[in-house]
């Protein structure tokens, strides 16, 4: 056990909100070699510290804000990974977000912030290098994310501080609440907002002035510069630089046939020309914004120039937000769609799950399963922005009958409503699917069904891709500017950067082993909660209903596809046919401490 030589500091800031204290948790180099950082490190802590059937909202449940070893160095596009046990699905969960928050944590001299406990009154935390302060957030409680961000920045008296805050949805403990980083970026999809609200933690602000130590700077800069050059020059990426991910809205409609439309009824949505990237370029976008050191600058800021929302400065649409709150809801008014996105950000709601819930509700109303009387007299129909806006507000504040019903999420809604509504529920492991229809884009099903979080679009689109994404999320790197650009060179470049940075002697085989180890740790955590092969599948609708129109007309995700994906992935990872890591695999990966857990789970669930 030794302290890290470079890349990491070997120190994690451990905050206990219950008694408002903090301490340094020393982490030896061996653990970083094993779990890298970010969500890998979080999975390591979670499997070590949590017993099976942990209450995700318990007082000692933790949130890990984790940058990776490459954050704060010359490597491009390092992000932040936020991981916790999701109170929404009850499984391990992680969310990644852009901007500069993660780097600032590293520059403050920490490898991550680990928050546990529960404050008695609302609090926000200021971290300036080694100085940690607990500040009263009573006045901020109830404010939306932008106001909170502004107030915290005012109090920090430093334009270079970076924040991560929650909005009213998190305070009201809506399980799909997210964390908004620096006003425009969201770490959603893992219920972190609800957990922060439960801990009465309104936000964190970080400012750092240190540097990350590098063991062999010359060699490291060489590889980092090469990696950067690839991202600058990649031809296919020029489109993302120009159009952001909004350009994919049209692409997936016309070419791939995988654009989510009206709660997975179809993927053919001709109105996309009214809300897609081209329209955004024409009437909304004003400037490009990049994360740190990133040549791709995929975030677009714009301003609405006419109508009732005149003067609203907002971001997007991205592919997911424009898909879920646009085509998924049958929107054809661009400004209303931007307002919905902005409202979700302001309340601190996950765009994807919110869109999923609203689409599901609308379809139930359309099919006559839900009546307006169940929704406080509101009658959502496709493209009706005002009703959706009202529902989003109710959702965020759990207001009235509609708010209480919708804020539970699709899974519990289907259980409560009954009447065959579960057929329309597009969920995997209890979480709403993102904007890629797996019938048109079959590879995306790898991420949806085999990824650790369930229903997540950001976990790789092939067996090897899942391992690569596990590494990317642990390094907290952006898949656009790094992983997808590097393609086949992922292992080579990552190892080439990590070795001179941290003084390690990793090989390319170690890269794959480490990725598999992280996935296996996450899997064991989920197995303890009862996940096995039966959960690694798409909802019934996507397996039976053929696509009625579009470029992939007639496509359906079959039982054979599912079996092929599962078998291929399980055998690559060394798991058995039930999707549970075998004892031999755990020993090879150095996870002996989990053998007993797996055996207990097998006994409990008769697997």
């Amino acid at each position: 056990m030794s302290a890290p030589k470079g890349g990491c500091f070997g120190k994690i800031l451990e905050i206990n909100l219950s008694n408002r204290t903090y301490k340094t948790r020393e982490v030896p180099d061996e653990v970083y070699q094993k779990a890298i950082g970010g969500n890998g490190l979080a999975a390591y802590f979670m499997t070590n510290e949590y017993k099976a059937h942990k209450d995700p909202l318990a007082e000692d449940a933790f949130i890990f804000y984790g940058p990776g070893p490459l954050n704060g160095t010359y490597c491009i596009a390092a992000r932040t990974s936020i991981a916790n046990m999701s109170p929404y699905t009850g499984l391990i969960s992680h969310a990644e977000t852009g901007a500069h928050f993660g780097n600032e944590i590293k520059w403050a001299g920490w490898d991550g912030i680990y928050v546990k406990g529960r404050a008695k009154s609302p609090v926000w935390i200021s971290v300036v290098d080694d100085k940690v302060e607990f500040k009263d957030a009573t006045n901020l409680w109830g404010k939306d994310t932008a106001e909170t961000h502004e107030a915290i920045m005012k109090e920090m008296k430093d334009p270079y501080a970076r924040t991560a805050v929650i909005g009213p949805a998190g305070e009201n403990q809506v399980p799909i609440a997210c964390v908004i980083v620096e006003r425009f970026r969201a770490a959603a999809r893992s219920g972190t907002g609800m957990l922060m609200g439960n801990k009465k933690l309104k936000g964190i602000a970080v400012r750092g002035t240190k540097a990350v130590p590098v063991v062999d700077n010359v060699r490291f800069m060489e590889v980092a510069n090469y990696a950067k050059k690839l991202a600058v020059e990649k031809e296919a990426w020029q489109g993302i630089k120009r159009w952001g991910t909004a350009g994919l809205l049209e692409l997936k409609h016309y070419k791939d046939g995988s654009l989510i439309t009206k709660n997975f009824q179809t993927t053919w949505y001709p109105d996309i020309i009214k809300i897609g990237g081209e329209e955004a370029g024409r009437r909304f976008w004003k400037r490009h914004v990049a994360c740190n050191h990133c040549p791709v600058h995929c975030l677009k800021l714009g301003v609405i120039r006419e109508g009732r929302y005149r003067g609203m400065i907002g971001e997007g649409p991205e592919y997911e937000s424009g898909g879920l709150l646009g085509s998924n809801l049958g929107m054809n008014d661009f400004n209303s769609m931007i307002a919905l996105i902005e409202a979700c950000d302001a309340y601190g709601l996950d765009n994807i799950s919110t869109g999923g819930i609203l689409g599901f509700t609308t379809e139930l109303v359309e099919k006559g399963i839900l009546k307006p009387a169940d929704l406080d007299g509101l009658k959502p129909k496709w493209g009706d922005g005002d009703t959706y806006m009202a529902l989003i507000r109710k959702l965020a504040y759990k207001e009235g009958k509609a708010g209480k019903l919708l804020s539970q999420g699709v899974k519990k809604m289907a259980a409560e409503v009954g009447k065959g509504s579960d057929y329309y529920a597009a969920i995997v492991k209890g979480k709403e699917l993102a904007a890629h229809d797996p019938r048109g884009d079959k590879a995306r099903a790898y991420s949806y069904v085999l990824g650790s979080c369930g229903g997540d679009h950001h976990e790789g689109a092939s067996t090897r891709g899942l391992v690569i994404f596990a590494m990317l999320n642990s390094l907290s790197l952006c898949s656009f500017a790094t992983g997808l650009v590097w393609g086949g060179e992922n292992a080579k470049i990552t190892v080439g950067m990590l070795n001179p940075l941290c003084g390690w002697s990793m090989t390319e085989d170690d890269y794959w082993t480490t990725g598999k180890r992280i996935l296996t740790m996450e899997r064991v955590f989920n197995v303890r909660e009862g996940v096995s092969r039966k959960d690694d599948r798409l909802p019934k609708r996507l397996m039976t209903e053929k696509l009625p129109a579009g470029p992939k007309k007639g496509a359906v995700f079959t039982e054979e596809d599912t079996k092929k994906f599962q078998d291929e992935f399980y055998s690559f990872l060394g798991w058995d046919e039930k999707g549970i890591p075998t004892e031999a695999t755990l020993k090879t990966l150095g996870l002996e401490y989990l053998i007993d857990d797996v055996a207990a789970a097998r006994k409990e669930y008769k697997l």
Partner: protein
Amino acid sequence: MEGKEKKVSDLLQKETTRRGFLRGTAVATGSAVALATIGSLAGKSAYAQAKPPEAPKKDLMKYLFAERQNCTGCRACEYACSVFHTGVVRPSVARVHVMKYKDVIDVPVICWHCDDHPCIEACPTTPKAIQADPKHNGIILNENICLGAKCMKCQEACPAHYVRANPDTGKPLFCDMCGGDPECVKACLAQSCNPQGPCLMANKLGFGVNMAYRAVTPEQAGADLLDLTFYPNVTGKRVTPAKTAKSRKARR
């Protein structure tokens, strides 16, 4: 007097606008590439081995310039600057930085290398702790003479609010032009691509532009850019969907 005349004649004969400068370097780089290609095509000829194509000789740059509305806030300039000066990435000691204004505007904050040097004028020590290098116009700090945190007269004097203190030593940070070939400019040009052009540029002549731009503080520049960019929202005031809905209801 003679020197001044020479400068003017240079100005008339050569293309000296910013764009002209950029075109000039592009042509130079292109010809270097062509030469290299010819060299490799010719194989291992004695000539190619004996005389590798020389890199085009660059003029020393004396002024920085920031095309502010092109900044995407990627901070490549901060990275390059701190790597050049300290070896590792450390934006807090970078001599160029990017400030967020009202969360929606990125303002690059640079030293404009004023011709009258208010910072040097304000420096109370004898000899002056800061000097402008005659060759490349970079401001060089002599840390042994500088009084540091208890003085900071240069910080007060800077009309562009550019000068910040080094968090370790408390002494001011100045742009030394990297000896005439600024790293931030190269980094910015390397990152910039379709559709966003480069933000930072360097030139050997100031054209008085530096004197005009230096009078604008980062906050003023941010306000100007916001007005320019986000019309009709000229102040950056927040329009929230919830409030819009409410106020409409009240009006009804």
